[in-house]
């Protein structure tokens, strides 16, 4: 079973929910937690451990000058400006390349070869006896987050229970993370901003076709608007985490409330049971 944790808005508590859920579930079974927020992965802060790193590469063009006739087809084709066909050579800008492979298809001379280029890495560790953490890390200045997310998810394949912690937003990296998930936990907070972005995220999971439930974090007890929205959209509210100094204190020192505060492990077990129900598949 694969569960994605997303939110739209940043800072609502996706990683908090993912980390606590993973920790709780690992007491009774093998769990893989995948940090798909590859631009700023931080689940490892909850689970410090030694990692084994696997580089992530993506294909970029290399021009064979012996075959190239400078016809210009590749440069005309590339909408990202990764190839400039000049008077006496083709200039490649690998960091502008989106690895579509089109240049090698349109080249009439077979002069374009694809070579791997490292854009990030996947860091694997086992911080708890039954928990494997797989963190995608996109190199600074790179744009191909989905390639690193794909690699991280691929390394988690084959495990019976996987949690995907998504990045904020609702663009390509989030879609890549949601792809193939059985259910999604949407984490929101009791603010107009949280609700605004929950609307967007709910629309995305609906379009991708993934059943979802909502966790309201830092609740001040006045969640009527969010509850109304969830009712309207048929989204079950499967957990409410109160706005509390005690929780914040644990969280702020990188601790897990499921492990350190009484009652929370049981609540995360209940959260998992609710998600299983939403997904309609056997865990």
């Amino acid at each position, binding site marked *: 079973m694969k569960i994605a944790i997303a939110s739209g808005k940043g800072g609502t508590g996706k990683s908090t929910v993912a980390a606590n859920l993973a920790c709780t579930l690992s007491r009774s079974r093998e769990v893989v937690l995948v940090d798909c927020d590859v631009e700023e992965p931080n689940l490892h802060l909850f689970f410090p451990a030694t990692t084994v790193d696997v580089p992530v590469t993506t294909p970029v063009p290399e021009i064979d000058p012996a075959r190239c006739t400078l016809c*210009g087809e590749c*440069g005309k084709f*590339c*909408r*990202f*400006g*990764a*190839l*400039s*066909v*000049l*008077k006496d*050579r083709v*200039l490649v*800008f690998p960091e*502008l390349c989106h690895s579509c492979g089109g240049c090698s298809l349109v080249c009439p001379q077979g002069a374009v070869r694809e070579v791997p280029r490292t854009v990030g890495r996947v860091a694997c560790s086992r911080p708890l006896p039954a928990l494997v953490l797989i963190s995608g890390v996109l190199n600074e200045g790179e744009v191909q987050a989905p390639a690193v997310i794909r690699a991280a998810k691929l390394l988690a394949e084959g495990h019976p229970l996987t949690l995907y912690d998504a990045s904020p937003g609702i663009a390509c990296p989030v879609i890549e993370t949601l792809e193939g998930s059985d259910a999604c936990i949407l984490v929101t907070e009791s603010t107009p901003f949280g609700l605004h972005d929950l609307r967007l995220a709910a629309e995305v999971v609906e379009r991708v076709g993934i059943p979802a439930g909502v966790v309201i974090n830092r609740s001040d007890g006045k969640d009527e608007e969010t509850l109304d929205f969830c009712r309207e959209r048929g989204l079950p509210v499967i957990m409410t985490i109160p706005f509390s100094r005690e929780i914040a204190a644990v969280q702020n020192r990188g601790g897990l409330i499921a492990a350190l505060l009484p009652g929370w492990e049981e609540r995360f077990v209940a959260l998992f049971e609710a998600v299983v129900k939403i997904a309609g598949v056997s865990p």
Partner: protein
Amino acid sequence: MIVGITARAAGTDAPVEQRFGRAPYFVFVDTETGKAESIENPLVDAAGGVGPRAVQMFSEHGATVVITGQVGGNAAKALEVGGIKAYAYRGSGSVADALAQYTAGNLQPLPLA
């Protein structure tokens, strides 16, 4: 010699555009014959990577000199490798004025490397 100038409209009376890759028009002037050719820039609304693609257009039109306001890093690299010199025109005059300033030796080269 062909000089390419970034412009806001077609023709040598058009004002010079300060942006390089997203200039609405490129005006190519043959300094021997005085003939000018204006090309509408298809990259104005492109998502990204416009600099190198604009350089490719200048190269295709045989330009060896570019007059514009400023160029970005990728465009600068492509201009340098392509052997195209770039000069800065920061005034608000026309394409014809920029060309006259260049011919008179009043324009500073843009640093490319």
